[in-house]
């Protein structure tokens, strides 16, 4: 089985992420499944960036610590990553900037000869990589024509010179003829929201969801979508609730710090029953933390955010396919049940690029929202059996649609009367049960390789694919709750039945899912944590599991 990793390093501003993505596309054309990890510090120019592009014959979603090829556009790329290279790694470098072993490519001279801007250096490197790895030039041509459609001829000329500048070293064979779409988690979330009928997206830029804002702002040219970037996350949330009140299916996006500012609006959404979806991309906290690195430290935050008690949806997709499917579901269910929903992702998922399995992009239907009666008697908070009142939007003839952050009566008028406050609290509780009923109809807990496994890994979010890969090697099963609120207790209990040793793998210190399981009477035997803001590599998780099991 072929399993190849390519480390591409350079300075921030060199377009390292694009280079890594082009390499992923080369692999994609050669029939491989790919995954791209992008590691970068929080600065614009000059600091060290690198990507690891991995290709394998089966589905992957994690990087490896042993890279087979190094493409170095800076001296740091050679000096800092020796421990990430396999013994006989192929090294290609920009001879104008880097001294070392391997094959040098005179990138600057090639660009100068072609009178090309620095940014086209990537094409040169890609060409050289293709030659060194025996990938035919027509594959390079296909990738450049598809992925850099603006100026393909010049990029192709440069790629050709890079191709001719080096010798073939270790051949990467074609393993198939199928190409998948390569999308990052932010794009998958955005597409899922669009599938669910998203009308508006409101966000203030914050890593790791800024690219979702950029993606949807671009998509607003093609889709009937309004995208707004207001003054701060408080305005984001409240503007979104205004859009939602007036009938637009709306989502917001942020990370932990921004979500702190959104919590007053989040509670308003819960109390006033205004549907809203929050895309929460976790990064390393607390506070500013490591802005461009990852973590799974905000599960308890989103489960408890906002004053008061109200039902909420929290889903944590673990792959690009799940990100697509569950973003659509989150939006539909938020509207059906008139509750806030959180799509809990992280830097690894948001900014990682994956081969998308289109066959797995099937979104289960969630049914239609409650039908309203006549508008003359419309009451925004009408008491119903399941606690969900018919949802209508202004303008509605002969009706006044009143939503209210205060305790309110069925008309939406403020009340402090004890009996009405109690009835409204009970209404929200019934709504929580209705939401749980909706969730129970869906496959909220996924299991992988559980046939006879006595040991299982318990994971949530982006650690899914590293867990499934490592678990396969050890003969472990994997259990992944995708929905974390309402907690799918019965489905999870059924999944862990028969497991002797349950090992939670979480990129946090406290074991947040472990604690949540304990609340629901599910015991976790071992907790494997991750405290450095970096995602688990396959080797690292393997070693950690060896220590504990």
């Amino acid at each position, binding site marked *: 089985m072929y399993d190849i990793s390519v480390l591409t390093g350079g300075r921030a501003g060199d377009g390292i992420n694009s280079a890594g993505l082009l390499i992923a596309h080369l692999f994609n054309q050669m029939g491989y499944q790919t995954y791209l990890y992008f590691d970068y510090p929080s600065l614009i120019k000059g600091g060290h960036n690198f990507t690891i592009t991995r290709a394998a014959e089966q589905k992957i979603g994690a990087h490896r610590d042993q890279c087979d090829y190094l493409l170095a556009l800076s001296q740091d790329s050679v000096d800092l990553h020796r421990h990430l290279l396999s013994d006989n790694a192929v090294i290609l470098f920009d001879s104008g900037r880097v001294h070392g072993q391997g094959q040098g490519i005179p990138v600057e001279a090639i660009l100068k000869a072609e009178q090309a801007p620095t940014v086209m250096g990537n094409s040169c490197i890609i060409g050289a990589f293709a030659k060194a790895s025996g990938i035919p030039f027509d594959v390079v041509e296909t990738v450049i024509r598809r992925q850099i459609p603006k100026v393909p001829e010049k990029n192709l000329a440069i790629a050709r010179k890079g191709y001719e500048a080096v010798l073939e070293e270790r051949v990467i064979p074609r393993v198939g003829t199928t190409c998948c779409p390569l999308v990052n988690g932010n794009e998958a979330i955005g*597409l899922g929201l669009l*599938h669910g009928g998203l009308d508006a997206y409101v966000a203030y830029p914050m890593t790791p969801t800024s690219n979702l804002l950029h993606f949807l702002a671009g998509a607003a040219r093609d889709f009937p979508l*309004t995208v707004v970037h207001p003054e*701060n996350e408080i*305005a984001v949330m*409240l503007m979104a609730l205004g859009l939602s*009140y007036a009938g637009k299916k709306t989502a917001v996006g942020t990370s932990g710090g921004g979500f702190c500012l959104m919590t*007053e609006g989040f509670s308003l959404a819960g109390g006033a029953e205004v549907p809203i979806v929050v895309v929460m991309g976790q990064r390393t906290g607390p506070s500013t933390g490591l802005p461009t690195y990852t973590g799974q430290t905000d599960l308890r935050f989103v489960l408890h955010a906002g004053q008061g008690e109200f039902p909420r949806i929290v889903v944590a997709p673990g792959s690009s396919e799940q990100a697509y499917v569950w973003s659509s579901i989150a939006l539909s269910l938020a509207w059906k049940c008139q509750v806030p929903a959180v799509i809990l992702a992280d830097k690894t998922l948001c900014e990682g690029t994956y081969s998308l399995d289109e066959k797995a992009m099937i979104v289960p239907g969630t049914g239609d929202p409650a039908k309203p009666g006549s508008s003359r008697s419309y009451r925004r908070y009408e008491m119903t059996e399941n606690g969900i009142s018919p949802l209508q939007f202004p303008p509605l003839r002969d009706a006044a649609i009143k939503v209210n952050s205060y305790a309110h009566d069925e008309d939406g008028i403020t009340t402090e009367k004890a009996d009405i406050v109690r009835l409204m609290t009970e209404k929200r509780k019934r709504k929580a049960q209705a939401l749980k009923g909706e969730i129970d109809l869906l496959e909220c807990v996924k299991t992988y390789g559980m046939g006879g496994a006595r040991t299982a890994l318990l994971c949530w979010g982006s650690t899914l694919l590293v867990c499934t890969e490592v678990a396969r090697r050890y003969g472990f099963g994997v259990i992944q709750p995708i929905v974390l609120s309402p907690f799918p207790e019965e489905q999870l209990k059924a999944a862990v039945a028969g497991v002797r040793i349950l090992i939670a793998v979480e990129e946090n210190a406290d074991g947040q899912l472990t604690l949540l399981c304990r609340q629901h009477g599910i015991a976790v035997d071992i907790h494997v944590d991750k405290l450095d803001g970096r995602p688990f590599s396959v080797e690292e998780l393997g070693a950690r599991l060896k220590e504990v099991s």
Partner: protein
Amino acid sequence: MQEKNLITGAQNTWCPGCGNFTIQFALRNAIRGLVSEGVPLENIVLVTGIGCHAKMSDYLGINSFYSIHGRTIPVATGIKLANPELTVICCAGDGDAYAEGLDHLIFGAKRNTDITVVIHNNRVYGLTTGQYTPTSPFGFRGKSTPQGAPEEPFNPLTLMLASGAGFVARSTSRKMPHLTGIIGQALRHKGFSFVDVLQICASYFNVSELYDRQGYELSGHDPSDFTAACRKAEEWDYNTDSPIAFGLFYQEAKPCFEERFSRHPVSNVHPEEQIRAFLEKKR
């Protein structure tokens, strides 16, 4: 829930003599004026913050979003963006708009969203029983400043002029016909309309005498003259005892925020087709 006289059956809990009554009836009458011109009542939406003023949501029988402290303007902006056909009115207090949500006020003016913002500026926190606000005079003895407020007030009119507001006016709860007229003008102005209403608080800051003695109605002022508007706005600094002008200080027609968003015609293409087209490019 839509009452013929636009007043709901909710029990009114403003203090006797509260300036909010005047604002309520002035606003109600201004809305009736719009309706008489053919604006459907169901196209009018009121957004309020939190404070005494905000009870307007309960008392007026029209669409309303009773939001949270300081946040009327982003909510109103979202509603207007969702449906530009709606007439969106914010009632906000001075604590709301000048303290907790000052950023939104400035951005509302900067964006020129077509909404009308009526500030119930009683220059005191009433519902929390008497603390100083951004427009209380220097030395104001409130419950949080028993030694007197240690800071000068700011002038909301000059702030709005500096922020790009295209309609800047001031009135008072002491002059109901004037207030009704100004709110009516504000509702008809296309763009961000700002009305600072000097409202008396019967319980914590009753300065009726000051507003009656120093107040006068603008005449001979050209509201299209920005420099004159600034000069006029600076006449009274919300602190000292100088003449207080009521009327329209500045008006300018400008493109509105929501008009700058492209509006797609309702599409029959299911998003899945567009999604497939996007994915094809990513292959």
